[in-house]
């Protein structure tokens, strides 16, 4: 059981990470900076709970705010560029963040033990959950409340005018601006909200793995962040969830028993998925298909 809960937690965290990129992708912006915001969230929340001994909830919320604010600041310059330029600009940003934490040393001594981030040695013993006797089930419930809140909010706003505007900007910036949409505001807000979500998931991640170091926040993480929504399809939020279950659940955990062929299959399946479902595993076609199936049943 414990193991499945752990898997569900991982899925939850990655779903949030994916959703943070989902919003930005709707506006047509391909950003690999999510890894950076995730890292900021993770370290902030961990520092707050470990060094300042905050409660977890304010800690992750603070992490969320900080990451969001950072995203807001980065948004203005970054969104002046588009397409590949933006990809690389955001890679640059997240690498910068990674390097920052890689150099970050902040050791304090508590009852004889040195704790806190220790540069390249990483940041060990972020044991808030187990120190406070949280069972893995508690963690899952706690974590998924956030996941569900975020999913609901994003799903709901997808069907509001705001959601329509995001997509409109993504499809045709010129037309959008000539019906009076302020592109900068839209893009920056998308970036900021993305930052909030990424920061939150980072904060939760830190306590899930109990140990952070710069290896966890490489470009690969950023790639995964955009991979989920792309692989799942941008038609709605559940695409991202499906993609996360596909990657984290099936490819990473489910195929573990085939040993070292697993990671080979991993790449192969992504290639195939994109060839056969270029609009995502959970694209409109799938949705309508599933809908039809349901209608037949009920």
């Amino acid at each position, binding site marked *: 059981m414990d193991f499945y809960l752990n898997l569900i937690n991982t899925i939850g965290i990655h779903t949030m990470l994916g959703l943070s990129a989902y919003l930005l*992708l709707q506006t047509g912006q*391909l950003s690999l900076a999510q890894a950076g915001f995730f890292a900021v969230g993770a370290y902030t929340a961990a520092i707050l709970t470990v060094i300042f001994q905050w409660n977890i909830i304010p800690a992750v919320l603070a992490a969320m705010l900080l990451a969001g604010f950072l995203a807001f600041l980065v948004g203005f*310059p*970054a969104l*002046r*560029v588009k*397409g*590949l*330029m933006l*990809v*690389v*600009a955001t*890679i*640059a*940003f997240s*690498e*910068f963040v990674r*390097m*920052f934490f*890689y*150099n970050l040393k902040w050791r304090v001594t508590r009852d004889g033990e040195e704790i806190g981030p220790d540069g390249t040695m990483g940041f060990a013993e972020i044991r808030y959950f187990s120190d406070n006797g949280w069972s893995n089930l508690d963690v899952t419930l706690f974590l998924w409340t956030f996941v569900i809140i975020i999913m609901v909010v994003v799903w709901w706003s997808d069907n509001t005018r705001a959601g329509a505007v995001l997509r409109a900007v993504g499809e045709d910036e010129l037309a959008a601006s000539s019906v009076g949409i302020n592109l900068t505001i839209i893009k920056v807000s998308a970036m900021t909200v993305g930052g909030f979500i990424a920061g939150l998931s980072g904060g939760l991640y830190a306590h899930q793995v109990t140990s952070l170091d710069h290896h966890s926040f*490489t*470009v*690969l993480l950023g*790639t995964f962040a*955009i*991979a989920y929504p*792309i*692989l799942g399809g941008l038609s709605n939020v559940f695409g991202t969830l499906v993609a996360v279950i596909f990657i984290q659940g099936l490819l990473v955990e489910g195929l573990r028993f085939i040993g*070292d*062929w697993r*990671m*080979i299959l*991993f*790449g*192969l*399946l*992504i*290639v195939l*998925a*994109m*060839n056969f479902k*270029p*609009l995502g595993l959970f694209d409109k076609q799938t949705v309508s298909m599933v809908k039809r199936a349901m209608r037949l049943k009920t």
Partner: protein
Amino acid sequence: MDEFFFEVVEITQSVWDGILFGSTYALIGIGFTLIFGAMGKLNMAYAGAAIAGAYVGLAVSMLFDAPIILVFVASALVSTMMGYLIYQTCFRFIPTHNHLAALMASVGGLFLIDEVIVHATRGSPLNFPAIFEDAYFEMGPFGIRGDLLFVFFIGLVSTVVLLYVLFRTRLGIATRAVAQQDVAAQLCGINVHNTNSITFSIAGLLGGIAGAMTAAAVGVLSPVMILPLTIKGLIVTVIGGLGSIPGAIIAGLFVGGLENLFLYVRGIDERDMYVVALLFIFLVFRPNGLFSKTITRD
């Protein structure tokens, strides 16, 4: 004064080495730029294919203890093939307008190549035959590595050849035609798929040379090189200006030199931090790169 002179010598020397080494980045950059110019898409699997080529070249040299030049030829040929395969698997069947899917597919390709290499070699670093390892020219306080000169030279030659092919031969003209206006090109009886796959193959060829040269310059071949090389390649492509071959070359040398400068002055921990920070600023204030000869479809 004497101390000052020493520093000057050292810094010049470091930058110079960096510039020579940058020629490998430049070649990778050219590959990215070619493909981007032709399709307006990003082939993330490119550097992976390059290194894979080098591996096969190495295998050849191990099996029939072939002369070093043959190693280069082999790796060039192999990654030419891989370039073609990548086009067929990750781009050919994905709708042209769907950039995200193609990007994701090539990321999958990257994972696949990477893992296949690991599977074949257990990820162990392998000794790569160096070219003129003993050619180390000392000129007064300065020293120059013969093999790097050779690398530099090969880089220049292949660039010149490439430019000739692109701007003087019918094939090159067709490629550029497709790059600028695929529909029109099709109407003129150019088969877009053929041209694209040729572009990928040419890029692959360069990649093979680049991979082999990098391996020869380091003297060791290991899978941990792939990701850094990919990122450097992207950075170079962007600084050079998308689709600009001379841009990519200059950017490659520039990045190489800069790296060593920062390394010398600020040390390893901050080297990459400054490089990416610079890149970010560069992107924001000169969004079109050094040579903004962007040839993309939109």
